């Protein structure tokens, strides 16, 4: 191997981290571990809450819609977590020289905006998104989260059918002048690496300031948000891929990865709940009911369905939108804009209507261990994951449901 360029110890590590994307399961397991740590610090990971906070602060600036009392972005752990996911991904994209401002045709920008708006309606109606409702909700043993997940699947299938229809009948939407600015090649664009290291320091300084100011919870959320963005960009961690690909390319890697991540979260959450870890003065019951909302069953199903359509049209779920923003995908900037602007409006005008229309039996808190005990509830979640795994792998081998 005399022709190979020698690299030092840290050079080797750098190549390991940034030369290629990591397998999805690596990213999902790491994201799962961080989700468990977030629960130990305060509360499990939620994606939609950050967009909601961004939106309320936007309307607050214009004194509109009565969000004057909304907490400032810097005082809201969800808002800061989401901002840091964008920044963490930005750092990862820069250090791997993957960053570029990627501008799609105008029709795609509109799809991003619409997809984001639908995700906002779905998340507020269903009380959860691809993260809080699924990646945290299912391991939190919430019955409503399982209904929301079924809704996500159904919504994804409908939206995939729409995308294929659009390709045939309205190809102009995704055709036109697409551009890419500031991109790098192997030889050019080393400024990205320099800026990446500078941004890394910025993230560390922001986190340090929260700890110094006596706000350790937001400080930890800043740190964890940075890691989540970094991990997601490197591993293409995206819930929508896990749901969508069996019905498109048939690739099962996304589903297998997310299932591995869910298993980690399930294990960690059950330990925390049953051992009452990190409760402080909170009651154990309050700890158990984290991420268990009054969305069982139709409310979760409806919300998940609308969210599933939105995330598939946007091309990114709650977290996929954030980290793709950091990577420079302009379509996802529009998706975040739609999510942010519609979230407070939906909370204020759509959700009260849904709460009035649906009977109590269709929107109550269903904590699975209350009905099945912990062994039964965990067993049910494991069974669902096993069925999903079997379907994804079987479909990958047979191509029964995949389109290309």
């Amino acid at each position, binding site marked *: 191997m005399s022709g190979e360029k020698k690299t030092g110890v840290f050079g080797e590590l750098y190549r390991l981290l940034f030369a290629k994307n990591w397998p999805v399961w690596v990213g999902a397991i790491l994201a799962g571990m961080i989700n468990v740590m977030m629960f130990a610090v305060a509360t499990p990971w939620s994606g939609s809450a950050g967009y909601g906070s961004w939106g309320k602060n936007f309307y607050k600036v214009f004194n509109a819609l009565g969000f004057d009392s909304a907490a400032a972005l810097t005082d809201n752990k969800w808002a800061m977590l989401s901002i840091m996911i964008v920044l963490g991904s930005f750092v990862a994209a820069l250090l791997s020289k993957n960053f570029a401002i990627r501008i799609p045709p105008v029709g*795609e920008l509109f799809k991003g905006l619409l997809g984001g708006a639908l995700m906002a309606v779905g998340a507020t109606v269903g009380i959860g998104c691809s993260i809080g409702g699924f990646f945290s909700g299912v391991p939190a043993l919430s019955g409503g989260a399982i209904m929301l997940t079924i809704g996500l699947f159904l919504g994804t299938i409908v939206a995939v059918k729409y995308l294929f229809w659009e390709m045939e009948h309205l190809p102009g939407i995704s055709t036109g002048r697409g551009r*890419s600015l500031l991109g790098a090649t192997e030889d050019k664009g080393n400024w990205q690496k320099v800026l990446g290291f500078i941004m890394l320091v910025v993230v560390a300084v922001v986190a340090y300031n929260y700890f110094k100011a006596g706000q350790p919870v937001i400080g930890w959320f800043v740190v964890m948000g940075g890691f989540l963005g970094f991990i997601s960009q490197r591993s293409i961690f995206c819930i929508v891929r896990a749901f969508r690909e069996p019905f498109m390319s048939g690739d099962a890697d996304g589903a297998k990865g997310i299932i591995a991540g869910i298993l980690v979260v399930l294990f960690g959450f059950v330990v925390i709940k049953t051992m009452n870890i990190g409760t402080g003065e909170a009651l154990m019951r309050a700890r158990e009911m984290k991420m268990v909302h009054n969305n069982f069953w139709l409310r979760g199903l409806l919300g998940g369905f609308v969210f599933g359509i939105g995330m598939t049209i946007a091309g990114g779920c709650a977290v996929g939108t954030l980290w*793709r923003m950091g990577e420079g*995908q302009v379509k996802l900037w529009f998706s975040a804009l739609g999510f942010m602007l519609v979230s407070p409006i939906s909370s204020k005008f759509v959700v009260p209507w849904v709460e009035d229309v649906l009977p109590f039996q269709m929107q109550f808190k269903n904590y699975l261990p209350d009905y099945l005990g912990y062994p039964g509830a965990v067993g049910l979640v494991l069974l669902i994951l096993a069925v999903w795994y079997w379907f994804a792998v079987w479909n990958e081998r047979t191509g029964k449901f995949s389109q*290309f």
Partner: protein
Amino acid sequence: MEIKVTVDTKGLSCPMPMMKLAKAVKGVNSGDYIEMLGTDPGTKSDLPKWCDKTGNVLVEQTDEPDGVFRFIIQKK
């Protein structure tokens, strides 16, 4: 090597690049070459996996200026 079709997916994000490529591949004959231009980093891992699965051949992959990736695919 004569390029039969060029699929321009610059600026598009997942899943549109792979959908457009799959549609273009359906429209050419076996052995034909297709050029794909894209900017979504995810395509770099999606496309080789898709070629492995479908039997189409990824003949060439290069990085062009401004973050554009160029792929040449031969239909099986």
